[in-house]
Structures are given as C-alpha cells and as structure tokens.
C-alpha cells in the first residue's frame, strides 16, 4: 500500500490531526494522483458503509431463548465458574495433604543410631479412623448429595431441551 493511499484513508477515517487533514485536503484538490486515489477510496468507503448485514434464520431468537431458558440465571453461583470456588477446593486438598504429612512426620523417629549402619526404620502407623468421626462423614455425605443433585439437575435439563426440539 502506497503512502498516498494510507494518507487518503486517514483523511476519510478522520484519524489524522487538523493540520494533516488540511494538508491532505489541499493535496486532493491540487494533485492528480491524490485526487484519483481519493475518488477510488471514497467510493469503496461509501460502499462499505452501505453494505447490508446478513440475516440469521427466522427461528434464531427462539432457538437462543430456548437455550437461555435452560441456562442458570446470570449472577447465580452456577452461571459462572467462580475462581474462589476453584481456589477453595484446591485449598481444601492442600490443607488435607498438609495435615496428613504433618501427622506422618510427627510420628517419625528422627534420632539416628551411631555408626555406618542404616538406622532402623519403623513405618509410622497413622490412625486414619481418628479423622473419620461422625461429623466428618456427615459433611462428606452432604457434599456428595449436593454434587449428585447438581449432576441430576443438569442431566434432566439437557434431556428436556433435546425433547423440546
């Protein structure tokens, strides 16, 4: 693309400053090359502005509204993948892992026998059942129930949507 074309496009788009606009305007009036380019580009510029937009199918709005009806409300918890939820889940697993590792290391005998022989090592016994108290199980089962209902709801919604088509 030559410099004349670029300047004329800037002139037509109105993206050049006042001084440049005046200068290019003057060149269009006096210079044949500028005048020819201006005439060509102005025609294309007007044609592009007048071009018609394409029309989607007749049932477009209805189809979108069907999908929207099956979607959660904007702003509801389900409608957005909230990063805080992701971070909370990650934090839960990180804490659980940390607690487990702490429990293991706290039971390790760190003193080493003298000499070159390898120290006797006894695998620590972790009482996992001590974590599984009644409250923990209830919370665990409740979380499972919520996830199960969420999954069931999405399956039903998808089925209803495919049936309505």
């Amino acid at each position, binding site marked *: 693309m030559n410099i004349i074309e670029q300047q004329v496009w800037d002139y037509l788009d109105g993206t050049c400053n006042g001084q440049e606009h005046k200068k290019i305007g003057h060149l269009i009036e006096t210079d044949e090359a500028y005048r020819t380019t201006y005439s*060509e580009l102005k025609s294309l510029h007007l*044609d592009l502005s007048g071009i018609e937009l394409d029309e989607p199918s007749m049932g477009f709005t209805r189809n979108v509204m069907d999908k929207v009806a099956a979607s959660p409300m904007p702003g509801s918890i389900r409608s957005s993948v909230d990063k805080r939820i992701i971070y909370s889940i990650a934090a839960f697993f990180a804490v659980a892992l940390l607690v487990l590792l702490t429990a293991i290391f706290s039971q390790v005998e760190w003193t080493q026998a003298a000499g070159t022989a390898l120290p006797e090592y006894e695998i620590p016994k972790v009482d996992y059942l001590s974590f599984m108290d009644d409250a923990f199980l209830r919370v665990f089962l409740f979380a499972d129930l919520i996830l199960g209902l969420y999954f069931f709801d999405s399956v039903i919604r998808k089925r209803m949507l495919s049936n309505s088509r």
Partner: protein
Amino acid sequence: MQNKTTEINLIKQVLAGNQGAYAELIRRHQRFVFTLALRFAKNREDAEEIAQDCFVKAYRSLNSFQQTAKFSTWLYTIVYTTSMTFLRKKRLETESIDSEGSLIQLENHTSDFRADQVEQKSKFAYLNMAISQLLPDDAAIITLFYKGEQSLEEVARTMGMETNTVKVKLHRARHRLKEKLEALLHHEVEELL
C-alpha cells in the same frame, strides 16, 4: 443515547430475572453478531451456531458486564473470541486468494454467485464476495469498523489489540479488499467478453 439507556434498562431487567427482556437484546444485535460470525465460519450453519453460542455466553455472564462501557463492544468481544476458538477447532482454510486453492474457491463462488439472479450484478454482492475471500481477521476488522459502529479504539478493545495495530490492519485489510474486488470484476469482465 436513548438506545443506550434502553439497552441498559433491558440488561437490568434481565438481571432482575426477566428473561423476556433478553429476547429484545438478541433481536437488536442478532444481525451484526451473525454477520461477524459468518466472516469467520464462511457458512451459515456454523455462523448461526457460533452466534447462538455467543448470546448464551453473554447471558450467563451478563452480571460481569460493566455498564459504563457499550454493550455492543462487550458482546462483540465475546463473538470475536468465540469465533477464533471455532476457527482453531475447525482449522478452517484461511489461505489468501492468491494461492491456487483460493482461486478454485473463487471460481466456485463465482458460479454460486451466477445462480443468484437477484443480486448478480449488484456491487454489494461483489463487495460481500470479496469480503468473504479475505482472511477472517481482515473481514472482522472491516465489519466491526463499518457495520458495528465501532471506533478504532473500540475495535482494538474487541480484538484485544493496540489501537495503532488495528489502524494498520484496517488499512491493509481495505487494500487487500480493493485488490480482490478488482480481481473479481476483472474476472467478470473477461467472462462477459
């Protein structure tokens, strides 16, 4: 301004739970969203699917729309990113018209075009055909600038680029469009002779 105010009111209604208000927003923007999607997809079925997907995505995240900006700019950003994702998935042919493959495509388009009796000789039909031969990014910039009532700054925001980059891209896109238009018209003149 009136249009903008009404649009914000419609968004508020949707956020308050009135889904019907969203249908009005769809009606207002569907033609442009569909046209923009068509610039990427190159066929109506895929473009319609992209456009529907965009409206559903926009609905789901409507609460994240900053009401200080134009709704159209926000919506077109969704259309642009969704269309780009579509292109990546489909790995559509995006070769220039100068390549052999594109010349074949051009001939096919010409014969399709010949079948269209109503707009056969219309300059807008030629223009549309030339736009469809452009690279998706070029076609999208031209569409956003001329039909989306978007300033260069807004186009840049929509496409996630610098304003100056968009300015240069727009110049180049129009230059390529002019070349393709000349090639199409030259081809047609040769056919007539």
